[in-house]
């Protein structure tokens, strides 16, 4: 009995399921930003840990693909390691940490710094696909609001932010409007990454396993962050460059160095940072290149 369990299909999912998911993906691409319900499967990792992204990746991946998996921008965070190992095992595909080499990049919470190219697919793991969920908890209501393009509530929320805090207090999962029609949750990426979605050459697919939704932004699609004329959308800026590679204009993680308030900022995108250091860029805490080599 138990010996028979060992066999799994290429990329884990059975072909019927893959076909069902591919249909949902095609529909999602045809209606950019629209959340397509799909019969999400139980996966061998927990709901909320990337089951939506894993199902999307499993449905589109082929033996010739090069897969990159990041979490928080890094290839070596535990869950990224776990998902990459999963596909290496069940699909036997080549994996990479280099953004430019990857044909499929599965991500949680970040978009790589390096501009994506035609032919690449970015697969987002999405916890709550509904951008209106925290304004209206009922799915029956929010679906109606999307159908009627009734997004006033979202603008009221953003306005109230400005009235209370002097600015829009949403820093991640910042809502966007896709191709002038659907308001969409970009998944919990920092709003820093929102402009990268706009007219990207890459295909962007979003999978929410627990909530059973797939949505997509096809290449060269308008993705505009919601804002007001007198309070235009703006992204985060960091006062200092990356302490390891000296990069500016990238998203940084704060690393606490001691218990006296000492901290440093380093690139969140580890591949980007490594690549820069390999090309000789040095931040203030990177040490001398010769020292590092020894």
């Amino acid at each position, binding site marked *: 009995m138990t010996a028979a369990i060992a066999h799994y299909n290429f990329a884990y999912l059975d072909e019927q399921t893959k076909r069902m998911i591919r249909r949902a993906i095609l529909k999602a691409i045809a209606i950019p930003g629209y959340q397509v319900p*799909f019969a999400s499967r139980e996966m061998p990792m927990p709901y*909320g840990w990337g089951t939506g992204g894993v199902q999307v990746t499993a449905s589109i991946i082929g033996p010739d693909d090069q897969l990159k998996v990041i979490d928080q921008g890094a290839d070596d965070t535990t*869950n990224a390691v776990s998902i990459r190992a999963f596909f290496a095992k069940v699909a036997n595909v080549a994996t990479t940490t280099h953004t430019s080499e990857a044909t499929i990049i599965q991500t949680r919470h970040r978009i790589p710094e390096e501009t994506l190219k035609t032919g690449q697919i970015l697969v987002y793991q999405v916890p709550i696909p509904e951008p209106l969920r925290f304004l209206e908890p*009922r799915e029956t209501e929010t679906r109606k609001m999307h159908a009627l393009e009734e997004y006033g509530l979202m603008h009221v929320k953003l306005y109230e932010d400005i009235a209370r805090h002097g600015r829009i207090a949403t820093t991640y999962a910042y809502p966007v409007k896709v191709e002038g029609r659907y308001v969409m949750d970009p998944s919990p990426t920092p709003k820093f990454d929102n402009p990268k979605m706009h007219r990207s050459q890459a295909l962007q697919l979003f999978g929410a396993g627990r909530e059973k939704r797939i949505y997509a932004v096809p290449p060269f699609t308008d993705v505009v962050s919601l804002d007001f004329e007198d309070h235009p959308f703006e992204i985060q800026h960091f006062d200092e460059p990356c302490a390891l590679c000296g990069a500016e204009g990238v998203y940084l993680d704060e690393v606490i160095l001691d218990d006296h308030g000492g901290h440093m900022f380093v690139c969140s995108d580890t591949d980007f940072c490594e690549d820069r250091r390999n090309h000789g860029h040095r931040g203030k805490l990177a040490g001398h290149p010769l020292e590092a080599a020894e």
Partner: protein
Amino acid sequence: MYVAVKGGEAAIANAHRLLADRRRGDRSVPALRLDQIIEQLGLAVDRCMGEGSLYDKELAALAIIQARGDLIEAIFLVRAYRTTLPRFGYSTPVDTGKMLIERRISATFKDLPGGQLLGPTFDYTHRLLDPTIAENGAVAEGERRDADAEQAPRVTDLLAGEGLIEPDGVAENGEVGDLTRSPLEFPLDRDLRLQALARGDEGFLLGLAYSTQRGYARSHPFVGEIRIGEVDVELDIPELGFAVNLGRIKVTECQMVNQFKGSAKAPPQFTRGYGLVFGQAERKAMSMALCDRALRAREFGEDLAGIAQDEEFVISHLDNVQSTGFVEHLKLPHYVDFQAELGLVRRMRAEYEAKQAEGDEPLQEAAE
């Protein structure tokens, strides 16, 4: 020099190795066997099969051992295996009226055809810890008797004879939904709702059922009947043109009978809440029946007075595999988003302190 933390792969491998070690525990203690779990922790196996929605005792027992006794983890293991299995078809409805009964009680009638049969129940035991179990004392065999020639019809069928209770529903075009094969769309039909409830977390449903008894959507329930036993599972084979018997499974069925004063469309009659669960799972079946009835409020035009009547709320949150996954995902790194929040709070804090430093007037409350 700061070195970015690496080595996630090695850390994960080591953690899993330690987990396997802790699961096995002291090697001088004999390892558990599947048959020990099946025979002696049968109700845990039943819960695992029910909420895992896969009737396979050996796999459930394996999952329980592998999960170190954490039943939600075990249910998850079973579900993740079940999802990979091909579907051959859907069985014909099981006939619980023809059940080989091990336990059957009714709270609505003192006696009834087929009689009351207590069966293997914790009811009326005194909850005193029994040291003889720890000493592995001898246990007497159960009393056996020949099967009763008298049939034990379902209480709801007896009441239906008088037309006092709503009849069994009929599935539209004879097909039942399957939430594991198609996405849910609210509002649900009752078949899908019952499937969701049958897979739902026992503790969650118990709490909701309890809330209906305490006034949050009271439905005046009586236990019409609880029956536990084995039923035949039959599958229609198109090539043969008739149903063949695949085997027997043990199930627990609970039929709650509830008052209904009638409406413009229906005469005064009793309504029903239904619970059906794999194995012996009485608490779950009763909770399911109470929740099923509460969720029919709209159907009967009843006031919505409690959370247990809110279909979208109940069905969206009753699945423990989904719930535990999303609650526990908070353990995953979130430092990119936290950094974004940190930046915002620092900026707002700096503005606040600058204003305070100006000193002349304190910050105005919005209401002033």
